[in-house]
C-alpha cells in the first residue's frame, strides 16, 4: 500500500509542478505588461504621436516620425510580399504532394526561422551598398523578406482547410479552375488569410534588427523611400540606449504604443480565425 501512496504522491507532485511551470511562464508577461502600463502611461501624450523627437534638454517631443516610418515601410513591405505570398500559397495548396511543393514548403519554413539580423545583412549587401546609402526602400525590402514566408505558409494552410466539395461544386458549374481558385477557394478562406497577413504585419512592425542597417532611422519627417527613415522599434532602441531619464520615459511610452498595436492585431486575428473556423465547419 505504501507503493501506492508513493505513486499517488508522485502523481500530485508531477501535476503540481506542471501547473507551477505554467504560472512561472506567465510571470515575465505580467511583469512586462505591468511595467509598460505603469511607466509607459505616464509618457503618453498627444505630442508623442504628432511631434518629432526634441534634442536632450528640451521638454516634450514625440516619436511621430517613427510611427509614420513604420507605417510607410510596413505598408510597402505588405505591397511587395502579399501578392507573392498569396500566389505562392495557392501553388502550395494546389500542388498536391509533389517534390516541388515539399521543397518550397521547406524553404518557406527555413526563411521564416531565419535570423532577422542576417536578412538585414543580406539586404545591406544587395541593396544598400549598390545604392550607396541607407533607405526606407531597403528597410521595407528586409521586412518583406521576413513577411513573405509567413504569408505563404498561412495562406497555404487556410486554403487547405476549405472543403474539397466547395471547389468541386465550382468546377461542376463549369467555371475554369483559376476562377474557382480565386472566387471560391480563396474567397471562402479569406478571413483566415487576412488573419495570417495581419499577424505577419504585426511581427514586421515590431522588428528592429533588420532595419538597423537598411532604413537606419532618422530624427526627421521622411516620406521619400530613397532616404533613411525612422521606425518605432528603432526609435525605442535609440531612446533606451541613451543615458537620459526623460528619454527612457519616452521609450516606455513608445513601447506601450507598439505593444498595444501588436497585441491588438494578435487578439483581433484570433477572433477572426475563430469565427472563420466556425463558419467553415458548416
Amino acid at each position, binding site marked *: 500500500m505504501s*507503493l*501506492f501512496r*508513493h*505513486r*499517488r504522491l508522485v502523481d500530485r507532485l508531477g501535476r503540481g509542478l506542471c501547473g507551477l511551470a505554467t504560472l512561472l511562464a506567465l510571470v515575465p508577461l505580467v511583469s512586462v505588461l505591468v511595467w509598460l502600463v505603469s511607466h509607459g502611461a505616464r509618457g503618453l501624450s498627444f505630442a508623442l504621436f504628432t511631434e518629432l523627437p526634441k534634442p536632450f534638454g528640451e521638454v516634450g517631443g514625440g516619436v511621430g516620425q517613427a510611427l509614420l516610418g513604420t507605417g510607410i515601410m510596413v505598408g510597402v513591405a505588405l505591397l511587395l510580399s502579399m501578392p507573392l505570398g498569396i500566389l505562392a500559397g495557392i501553388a502550395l495548396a494546389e500542388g498536391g504532394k509533389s517534390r516541388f511543393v515539399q521543397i518550397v514548403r521547406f524553404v518557406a519554413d527555413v526563411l521564416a526561422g531565419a535570423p532577422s539580423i542576417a536578412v538585414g545583412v543580406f539586404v545591406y549587401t544587395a541593396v544598400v551598398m549598390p545604392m550607396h546609402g541607407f533607405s526606407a526602400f531597403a528597410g521595407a525590402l528586409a521586412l518583406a523578406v521576413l513577411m513573405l514566408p509567413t504569408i505563404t505558409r498561412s495562406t497555404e494552410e487556410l486554403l487547405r482547410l476549405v472543403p474539397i466539395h466547395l471547389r468541386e461544386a465550382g468546377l461542376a458549374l463549369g467555371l475554369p479552375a483559376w476562377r474557382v481558385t480565386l472566387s471560391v477557394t480563396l474567397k471562402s478562406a479569406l478571413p483566415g488569410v487576412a488573419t495570417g497577413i495581419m499577424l505577419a504585419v504585426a511581427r514586421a512592425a515590431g522588428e528592429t534588427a533588420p532595419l538597423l542597417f537598411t532604413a537606419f532611422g532618422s530624427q526627421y519627417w521622411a516620406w521619400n523611400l530613397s532616404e533613411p527613415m525612422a521606425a518605432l522599434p528603432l526609435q525605442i532602441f535609440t531612446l533606451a540606449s541613451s543615458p537620459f531619464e526623460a528619454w527612457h520615459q519616452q521609450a516606455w511610452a513608445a513601447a506601450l504604443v507598439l505593444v498595444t498595436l501588436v497585441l491588438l492585431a494578435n487578439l483581433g486575428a484570433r477572433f477572426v480565425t475563430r469565427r472563420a473556423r466556425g463558419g467553415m465547419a458548416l
Partner: protein
Amino acid sequence: MMELEPAIAGPVRPIGSRSTPAPLPFPPERPRSSAKMSTDDLRAWFGTQEVLKGVTLALAERQVTAIIGPSGCGKSTFLRCLNRMHETVPGARAQGRVWLGEQDIYTVDPVVTRRRVGMVFQKPTPFPFLSIRDNVLAGLTLNRERPKHAHAVVEQALQQVGLWDEVKDRLDRPGTSLSGGQQQRLCIARALAVAPEVLLMDEPCSALDPIATARIEELIHELAGRYTMVIVTHNMQQAARVAHVTAFFYMGQLVESGATEQLFTNPKDPRTEDYLTGRFG
C-alpha cells in the same frame, strides 16, 4: 497483496426478468448466480446530455455478459463507467453506484479500480514505442511493479491469449509489428498480465477481419471460466456466440437482461424483439 477473487458478492439488485441463469449452451463450466459487479441507478452525462438514464444491472461472476443495443444507446458509456474511464473525457460525468465486490468504485481512487478491472478497446492499442514483451509488462511497469519473473509473466499472459507460439521468437520486435488481430490479443494479454478480476471489452472485434474475430471469440470462451467479462458488441451473433448473459440497452436505459438463449429466443420486451428481428438499430 491483492486478493484476486473475493468470494463475497456485492449487494445485488436482480432486475427485470433476470432470475437464476438457465442452463447455458457453453461454456458450461461454473454457472454462478453471484454478482461480481453491479450498478445501482447509474447515470452518465456528456456535458448536459444524459446518455445513461439510471441503469441497474448485476454482472455475474466468471461469466460473460454481453451488452447489445443500437448505436448511441449508451452501451459503451456503461462499460466505461465500470472502470471509471468515462470521466476521463472532458465534460463527462457519472452518478450512481458501481459495486465491485463490496466496494463502491466511485469512493476509491480510480487507479485502484482500473487495476482490478481491465479493459480492451475497440481498436488495438499496443504502445508503439514498446516491444511485444514490454507491451505485455506495460501494466505492471506503469504500476511500478516490475515483477521478478518477468519472463514467466510474459509467457503466461501470451499463452493465455494463444499468442505465445506466434511471437515467442520475436518478443523484442515492436508491438505494432503484429497484425491487427494479433495486436488485439496482445492488448488482452497486457490487460491479463496485471491479474484483473474483471475484463471489459469495448467492441473488441469491430476493427478486425472475420478470421481474427473468430480467434478472439474463441479466446473469450477460453477465458470465460476464469474472469468476469463484459463485452459490448453491435454484433448480435457475436453476443449469442460468446455470452452467458445478455443485456439489451436502448436510449440510455436497460430494457432487459437475461440468459442469452432466453433473451434471444423469448424476449420479454417488445423493443428487444424489434431490435433482434431487425426492425430498428
